[in-house]
């Protein structure tokens, strides 16, 4: 599709509530250089969310939506969990189906969109929690990587089952006392980034959402590499402040602590050679495009 399609019929425009006018007028659909800085003004992202106040997941959502290269041609696949409370408010088609089969749904969806629209890049992005990605859905997560399905998997890692009240998950750290781990979790946090790399992902990133520019770059890399090269995986630490006993304002500090040296979420990136080549060429293209735009702006209009 093109952004031109997201328009209101003139004859009925005056009865449409303001939020839809904003959606059309100030959306960054079609803008190649959209990014996290647009979150204050672009209402195609999320206007309101229904997560707990101060939840880092809500800000992660906004960064991700702002960083998508082509939201007008992106379809999300979500899974059961807190994220599914946000999806109805997002101006991108999104599918919620079952718990754990998000990567299976995305596999069928991506292949179909590729076959129906061979000349358009339709991006499919999976966005699910750690329970869905690692526990109940691990086989489907990994099998989609084995099969080299060309879409991006994003895992919101809050190290527990937040939506059901804080139960142990595979991505929980060892020793953490939680529901269903009354004596503390007795095995290590699953090393999903390493698994992703070994399972065939062309690009893997592990980070927190404390720094928006980093999130933006990682999401752009992941989506663009998924188009051309193969599966990509991004694991974002979005602590559940409620379940780890923190206050609304303490989410950012928690993320900063965990990403400092020796922490669980020191930023890691794995880029395959082919993916790196692609990123390099994109970098050059972007540079040239911006330079040309700058020069065009310098020239007098009637020249």
């Amino acid at each position: 599709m093109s952004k031109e399609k997201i328009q209101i019929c003139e004859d009925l425009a005056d009865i449409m509530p303001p939020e839809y006018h904003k959606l059309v007028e100030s959306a960054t659909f079609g803008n190649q250089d959209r990014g996290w800085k647009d979150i204050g003004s672009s209402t195609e992202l999320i206007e309101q969310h229904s997560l707990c106040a101060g939840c880092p997941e809500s800000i992660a959502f906004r960064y991700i939506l702002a960083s998508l290269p082509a939201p007008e041609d992106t379809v999300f696949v979500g899974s059961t969990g807190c994220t599914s409370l946000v999806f109805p408010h997002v101006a991108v088609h999104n599918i919620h189906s079952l718990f754990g089969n998000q990567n299976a749904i995305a596999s069928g969806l991506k292949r179909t969109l590729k076959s129906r629209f061979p000349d358009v890049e339709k991006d499919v992005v999976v966005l699910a929690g750690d329970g869905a990605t690692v526990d109940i859905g691990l086989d489907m997560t990994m099998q989609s990587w084995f099969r080299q399905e060309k879409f991006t998997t994003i895992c919101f890692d809050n190290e527990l089952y937040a939506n059901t009240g804080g139960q142990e998950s595979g991505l929980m750290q060892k020793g953490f006392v939680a529901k269903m781990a009354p004596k503390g979790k007795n095995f290590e946090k699953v090393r999903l980034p390493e698994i992703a790399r070994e399972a065939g992902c062309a690009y893997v990133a592990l980070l927190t959402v404390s720094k928006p520019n980093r999130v933006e770059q990682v999401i752009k890399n992941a989506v663009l590499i998924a188009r051309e090269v193969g599966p990509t995986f991004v694991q974002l630490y979005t602590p559940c402040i409620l379940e780890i006993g923190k206050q609304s304002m303490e989410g950012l500090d928690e993320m900063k602590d965990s990403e400092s040296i020796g922490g669980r979420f020191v930023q890691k990136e794995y880029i395959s050679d082919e993916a790196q080549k692609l990123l390099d060429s994109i970098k050059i293209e972007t540079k040239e495009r911006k330079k040309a735009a700058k020069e065009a702006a310098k020239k007098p209009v009637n020249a």
Partner: protein
Amino acid sequence: MSHYEVKAGPEAFLPPAAATMGNILPDPGEAHIGGKIVPEEEAYEHAARKILGAKVPTIFPGPLVLWKWNDHVAAKAKAIRELANEVPMRLIPMADYRPKYPKIDAAVEINPNHPNLTIWHNKIDVCIFIGVHCHQANLALKMIRASTNCYTMAMCAMAGHEDACLSFRDADLEKIQRLTAAVKKLKAEGVEVQANSFTQFQMDRSGFVVEPVN
């Protein structure tokens, strides 16, 4: 023929879907009134009379005609406006189907998850759904029948709706115009509009341009 008459409600805490009561959708060239299959021609006049006899006749345009996703719907939107102006009828949009957070503004929009709020708030007694995806329209129509006294009609672009009190099928631009023509004809024959006077609200991105006045 059906024994289950689809009437304006309130019908029950949870009324059955009309299809499970044996009501059948019309074939091309037909429509249904109250569950009874009639020639389409008959339905235009019936619908026009219902509209003209209503105190608060309202059109609920759905996303398929509010959003200009192709040229045909832009033409349909124009025809809907003409119908609304001809009667006149109120226009209240159903822009999408999401459960809205924190709440929907029942005065100026309708949501398929809470359609009765809009009917109650605006005291709507006759309404037409146009351009709503069938699944969502059926949910809303049935919930309206459950708890309001609104007479519902559907201008469906596909196979029609048993859960409306009256339904057209294959409704394209021409059929919307024919309904407008039926209204015009009745008015010319001396049928008077019973609608309460009102001002159609208008909005832009800053909010109301014209506030709804009953």
